[in-house]
């Protein structure tokens, strides 16, 4: 018995030593080739045959069959098999697929996951037959990791200012807000016209960086330096943006804590006069009963710039895929302007391909074309493996400043320090 236990202990210790001895990073990994071309060699997508398995999340996963069927009609030699994956599980499932080498050929990828998957060596560089200039620049940048592109933007979204024109007019504001001062004045005017809060801004919490970062960019800030090596969060633009953001809380123009009433309802009945959000809110606000005559969307206010946030999802081919020709052929198909318009008509996903916006379905809709205009000036966070963690730190500082008692002057160095501590994961 005692001997047995000792033998077990020795075995375990031995296993650990073997495991530890095998550890150690290769000196030159992560650096990659010095001459990183932005695109990989062309893939012969014309000769696509065989099977392509595709993972997609959310409404995209539920409806992609529509496009897959159309693709198979044009390419009878290819079979596309779509698997819907829930958003909550998608990240881990893709990581597992990459680690195990057993995954789909094509997968939908959240824009903030690109850095991680590319660094894992799990997704294929974009071949040269894809033309980067067809896409919105901000969206294309989400695919670029260390100078190499690893996929294409599939659909996009960006954030605009939604506001109640009737309340603004009642308060004496008849023009959409062009600057920070205008936006503040509009919130005050709307509140003066009887709204409980002139605007709704997120007081920290998951994803509040998506509302805050546009202000940071508008003040002239950049998240990282030009070569993507170091964070440049702290500085004058950050303090200016955080002070401006916090001033809405200080002056009681926005709710001090997340409420338990849905925003769309409060917007529809005039309790909240404006907010910053993405295109999905058009439908949500309409369904909540807001009279279309009483509200509209406006471009982000302009200081140094009028930049907004661009999100959405990308499409990538897994490095272990054994049918890359057909996989890229399917992605090429999904990137055609007509197909992008069909996709918009199917589930209202906004096209990532610029020329698709010329289609009357989008161009003739004043609300949607406002989103199209903003997309020309919209940025995404850097595609680094640690972005989600850095973003959580930024969310935390935003909460400390808006809800807690941290000053913007302390908040910006705190963001910088936290981001430096996390690093880029490279």
């Amino acid at each position, binding site marked *: 018995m005692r001997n047995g236990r000792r033998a077990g202990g020795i075995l*375990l210790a031995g*296993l*650990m030593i073997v*495991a*530890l001895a*095998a*550890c*150690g*990073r*290769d000196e030159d*990994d992560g650096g990659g080739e010095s001459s990183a071309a932005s695109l990989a060699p062309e893939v012969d997508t014309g000769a696509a045959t065989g099977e392509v398995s595709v993972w997609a999340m959310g409404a995209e996963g539920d409806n992609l069959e529509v496009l897959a069927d159309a693709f198979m009609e044009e390419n009878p030699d290819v079979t596309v098999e779509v698997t819907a994956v829930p958003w909550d599980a998608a*990240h881990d499932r893709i*990581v597992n697929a*990459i*680690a195990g080498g057993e995954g789909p050929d094509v997968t939908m990828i959240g824009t903030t996951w690109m850095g*991680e998957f590319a*660094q*894992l*060596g*799990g997704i294929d560089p974009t071949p040269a037959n894809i033309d980067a200039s067809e896409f919105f620049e901000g969206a294309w940048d989400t695919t670029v990791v260390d100078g190499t592109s690893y996929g294409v933007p599939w659909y996009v979204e960006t954030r605009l200012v939604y506001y109640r024109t009737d309340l603004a007019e009642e308060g004496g504001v008849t023009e959409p807000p062009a600057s920070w001062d205008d936006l503040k004045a509009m919130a005050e005017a709307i509140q003066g016209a009887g709204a409980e809060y002139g605007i709704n801004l997120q007081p*920290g*919490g*998951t994803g509040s960086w998506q509302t805050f970062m546009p202000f940071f960019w508008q003040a002239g800030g950049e998240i990282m330096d030009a070569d993507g090596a170091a964070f440049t969060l702290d500085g004058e633009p950050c303090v200016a943006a955080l002070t401006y953001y916090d001033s809405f809380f200080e002056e009681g123009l926005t709710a001090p*804590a*997340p*409420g*338990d*009433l849905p925003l769309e309802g409060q917007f529809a009945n005039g309790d909240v006069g404006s907010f910053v959000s993405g295109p999905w809110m058009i439908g949500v606000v309409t369904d909540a009963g807001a009279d279309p005559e009483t509200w509209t969307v406006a471009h982000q206010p302009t200081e140094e710039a009028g930049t907004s946030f661009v999100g959405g999802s990308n499409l990538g081919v897994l490095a272990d895929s054994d049918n890359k020709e057909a996989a890229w052929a399917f992605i090429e198909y999904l990137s055609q302007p007509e197909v992008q318009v069909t996709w918009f008509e199917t589930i209202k996903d906004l096209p990532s391909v610029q020329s698709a916006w010329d289609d009357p379905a989008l161009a003739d809709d004043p609300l949607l074309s406002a989103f199209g205009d903003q997309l020309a000036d919209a940025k995404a966070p850097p595609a680094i*493996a*640690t972005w*989600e*963690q850095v973003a*959580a730190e930024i969310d*935390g500082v935003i*909460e*400390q400043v808006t*809800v*807690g008692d941290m000053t913007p002057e302390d908040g910006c160095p705190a963001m910088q320090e936290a981001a430096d501590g996390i690093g880029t*994961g490279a």
Partner: protein
Amino acid sequence: MAGRSKTRQTLVAWSFALPFLLLFVVFLAGPIAAAFVTSFTDLRVTDIKNPLSVDFVGIGNYLDVLGDQRFQKAAQNTAVFVLVGIPLTMALALAAATGLNQGIVRFRTIFRVGFYLPVVTSIVAIAVVWRLLLGSEAGLVNGILAGFGIDGPGWLTDERYALWSIIAMAAWRNLGFLMVIFLAGLQTIPGDLYEAAEVDGANRWQRFRGITLPMMRPTLLFGAVTTGIGYVQFFEEPFVMTEGGPLNATLSLALYGYRQFSFGNYGYTAALSFILFLAIALLTLLMFRLIRPAT
């Protein structure tokens, strides 16, 4: 002859134990050993294609975890949750069990079901209902308070109340399980002890202190240990109700570990998990010392 049959017996015994042993080694001991090794490396999600090509960082992860302000905040929240939550849950459960055992005769089943129902209800359903109850603007609790002219706070969105709201919910959710255990414990106490005490003139409180509590010691210990192990790892309540906010007021150790894991910091998370494991072991040991039946 005797030796051969003994060997045979041993072989049979091992073969019976083998299925468990295999499962235990593959799914429990193996991963735990792997996690232990991981906790001394800088393994991140970006390494999983080559998990062995990582650097050995000694106790660096452990030092990082202990020096991390958010870990300290989470440890503090967890300590409050455990130190307030365990006595509160046990007291409520014991009160409910004593009541059901003695006082309440009518509708006893209804009470039992009522207290036990939260235990078998999905935490997500409970969280939705409690969020409706505790909402700052449309919540029922604040609605009732408003009837008395009191402007209730945001129970889950105000830094000062959030953790206490969660403790109250956890106590309510878990007291049913302990109540059943305690009820069983109460029913094993011989009735003649109470009769003898009554003859000696002991009042209700004296009987409770002098008979019920000492006789219930092993049951109480069991209750404290199982509740304690669960409470040190409390996770679902903040995960579904507050996401650890506001201002990390409800961030628990398990939730913080989960977050670090989802950020892909595997080495760091492994170290944090072993610290949590150590805390659970120490707490359990402490409770055994405190409530161990006097022998």
